[in-house]
C-alpha cells in the first residue's frame, strides 16, 4: 500500500508536465469552429491586400469572424450567412464570385478557351493534312542543320 503511494507520487513528480494536462481548444465549440473555418476560407478579409478571412490576423477580420461565429451559434445556414454578408459588403467579400451577368465570361471563359482551342486544333490539323506534302526534315537538311550547329553558317 505504502509503496504504491510512493511510486505514484514519484511518477507524478517525474512526469510533472504531463499532469498539467491537455491543452484546451481555442474555440468553445469545435463543431461551430469547423463550420466557421469552412466558410472563412471562401471569404475575403476586407481590409487586407489579398487574404482570406481564415488567414488574416487583422482586427477587422477578427471582428468579422466573431460575427460569423455568432451567426453560426444562432443556427443560421451557410446560405443565410453568405447572403447576409453579401448584402452588407457586396460580392467583394466572396472569393468564389457568384454567377451573374457581369461574371458570365469569368466562369464560362476557361471552358470556352478549351473548346475554341480544341476546335482550332482539329481544323488546323485537317487543313494541314490536306495541304502538307510530306517534307519532314530530310537527311540533307539534317546534315545542314548539323553543320550549321557545329560550324556556324559557313556554306559548303
Amino acid at each position, binding site marked *: 500500500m505504502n509503496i504504491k503511494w510512493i511510486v505514484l507520487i514519484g511518477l507524478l513528480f517525474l512526469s*510533472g*508536465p*504531463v499532469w*498539467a*494536462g*491537455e*491543452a*484546451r*481548444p*481555442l*474555440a468553445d465549440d469545435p463543431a461551430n469552429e469547423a463550420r466557421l473555418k469552412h466558410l472563412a*476560407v*471562401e471569404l*475575403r478579409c476586407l481590409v487586407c*491586400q*489579398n*487574404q*482570406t478571412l481564415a*488567414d488574416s*490576423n487583422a482586427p477587422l477580420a477578427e471582428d468579422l469572424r466573431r460575427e460569423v461565429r455568432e451567426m453560426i451559434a444562432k443556427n443560421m445556414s451557410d446560405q443565410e450567412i453568405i447572403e447576409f454578408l453579401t448584402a452588407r459588403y457586396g*460580392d*467583394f467579400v*466572396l*472569393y*468564389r*464570385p457568384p454567377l451573374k451577368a*457581369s*461574371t458570365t*465570361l*469569368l466562369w464560362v*471563359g*476557361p471552358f470556352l*478557351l*478549351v473548346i475554341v*482551342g*480544341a476546335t*482550332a*486544333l482539329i481544323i488546323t*490539323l485537317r487543313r*494541314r*493534312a490536306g*495541304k*502538307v*506534302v*510530306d*517534307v*519532314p*526534315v530530310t537527311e540533307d*537538311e*539534317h546534315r*545542314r*542543320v548539323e553543320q*550549321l*550547329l*557545329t*560550324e*556556324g*553558317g*559557313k*556554306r559548303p
Partner: protein
Amino acid sequence: MIPEIGHFALILALCVAVVQGILPIYGAAVGNSALMAVAKPAARGQFFLVLTAFGCLAYAFAEKDFSVLYVAATSNSQLPLHYRLAAIWGAHEGSLLLWTFILTIWMFAVTLFSAHLPESTRSRILGVMGLVSIGFLLFMLTVSNPFERLIPAAAEGRDLNPLLQDPGMVIHPPMLYMGYVGFSVAFAFAIAALLGGNLDAAWARWSRPWTTVAWCFLTVGIAMGSGWAYYELGWGGWWFWDPVENASFMPWLAGTALVHSLAVTDKRGGFKVWTVLLAIMAFSLSLLGTFLVRSGVLTSVHAFATDPKRGMFILVFLAVVIGGSLALYAWRAPRVGLGGSFASVSREGMLLANNVLLVAAMGSVLLGTLYPLFLDALDLGKISVGPPYFDSVFVPLMAPAIFLMGIGPLAQWKKASVPDLTKRLRWAFGVSVVTAITLPIAMGNWTPLLSLGLLLAIWIFTTTVVSLRERLTHVSGDSFMGRLASVPRSYWGMIVAHCGIAVFIVGVTMVKGFETEKDVRMNVGETATINDYTFRFDGAQDVVGPNYTAARGSFSVSRDGREATVLYPEKRRYTAQNQIMTEAAIDPGLLRDLYVSLGEPLDDGAWSVRLYHKPFIDWIWGGCFIMALGGVLAISDRRYRIAWRRQEQDVPASNRAARRKVA
C-alpha cells in the same frame, strides 16, 4: 558621388542600348558585317555599365546612404548587411534595375555561347535584346530612378518590409527574374528568325537550351517563393492564387508549352508558327507579370489612376513590344513552311493537345487575375476572384493534360496506333486505378479529388516505368548499366521532369487530404497531440534580434513517449515600423512536416497556438526541384555539349574571322 556614377552609367547604358538595338539589325538586313559586328561589344559594354550601376546601388545600401531616396525608403541602419543588399530588389525601382541587370547578364551569355551562330542571326538576337533593354533603361531614367537623391538626407531609413527580411527573399527574386528575363532570349531568337525569315530546325535547336535554362530558373524561383510563403506568412498555406503569384505562374505555363513545342520543331520541323507564337507569349507574360506586380494596379485600379505615370509607361511599353512582335508575326509567319506531316494520334498530336490545354490553363489564370481589375475599371462592381475559383477551373483543365503526359512519351512520332498504346499501357493504367482507389480507403479518408490526384501521380510513375523499360530494350549495350548509360541525357531529363510533376501532385494531394490542424490555448506545461505527435509548451521568453524583439516559445515534441525535437516559433516585433511578424517553427521531414506558430499571448503566460501536421508537404517543393533537375539533365545532353566543345576547341580564331566574312 557614387550614386551619381550609377545614374551616369545607366544613361551611358541607354546610349549603348540604342546603338545595339538599331545598327546590328539594320546591318543584318542590308548585309553589312561591320554594322553587325557592333552587336557583341555593345552587349558586353552594356553589361559592364549596368553592372556598375548595380554595384553603385549596392554600395549605397552597404554604406547606409540615406541621402538616396530609394535606400532611405527600403532599408534601415539596424538592418543586417545581407538584408540591406537584398533590399536592392525590395521595392519598385531596384527591382527594375535587377531586371535590367539580369537582361544584360543574359545578353552577355549570348555573346559567350553564340560563336556557332551565323553572324546575322546573332546580331539580330542581340539587337532585339537591346531594344527590350532600351525600354527598361528609359523607364528607370524617366519615372523610376533608383538613384534619386533625398535632400536633406534622412537621419534614418524607413526599413525593409519585415516580411522580406528572410533568406528566402534574398534568393527568390533573382531566381524568378532569371526565369522571366531568360524568356527574352527565346523571344529574341524567335523575332530574329522572323526578321531573317529562316525558321528552320537549327533555330529550334539553338533556342532549346536557352529556353530550358530559363524555365528551370523560373521553376525554382516559383518554388522558392511558395516555400517562403509557407514558413513566413505563418498560416501554413503554400499557394494562394494571389495575383502576384499568378503573375509568375502564367509565364511558367506558357514556357512549359514552349519547351515542348520546341522539341517538336527541333525533332520534326513541325509547329514552327505555333512555337514562335509561344515564345512571344511567354516573354509578353513575363513583361505583364512585371507590370502587374510593379505598377500598383493590383492594390487598386484607382491608386493606379491617381499616379499614372509609371503605369502608363509600362502599358505603352507592353503595347509596343507585344503589338510590334505580333504584327511582325502576322506579317512573316504565313511564309513559314509546315514541316513534316503527322496523324492526329501521334506524339506530335498529343504534344499539340497538351499545348492547347496548357495555354487554356494559362488563359484561365489570366482571366481570373485580370477580371476583377476590368470590372472595377468599367465600374461594374468590385468582385474577388480567389482560390475557390481557380481550384474549380484549374483542376479540370490540368487533369487531362497530365493524363496525356503519361501517354505522350510512349507514342511514336508521326503516327501512333491507339490499340497498340492501349496494349502497352493497360498494366500501368490498371495499377494506377486500383492503387488510387484503395490507397485512400486504406488510409481512412476517401474523396474523389484525393483519388484523382493519386491516380494522376501514379499514372505518371507507372507510364515512366513502361517507357524506360521499352527504351532499355531498344538501346544497345552489353550490361544493364551499359544500356542505362547509352540512353541519352535528354530522355533522362524528360522522365525526371515528368516524375517531378508526379512528386508535386503527391504532395498537393496528400496535404489536402490528410492535413491535421489544431488551434489551442496552451499554458506552460500543457500538451496537445496531433496524429502521433505530442507537443508540450515549455513557456515563452523574450529575445532580442538585430532589429527586432521577439517572444520565443519553446515546444518539446515527442512521439510514443520519446523526445523527437524541440521547436522555437517566434512572434517578432520589428522596431523600425513597429510591425508584428509570425515566425513559424517547422520540423521538416520526408513524410511529414510539423508546424507550430504562435498566435496571441493570453493571460498568465498562456498563448494561443496553431499546430499542423502536414503529410508529404515537402514533396511539393521537392517536385519542383526535380522538374528543374530534369531541365538541367536535358541541356547537358550530348548534342549540346558537342556543340559547345567544338566551338571551344575546333574553331581557331582565324577561322572565326573567316566565317564572319562568309556569313
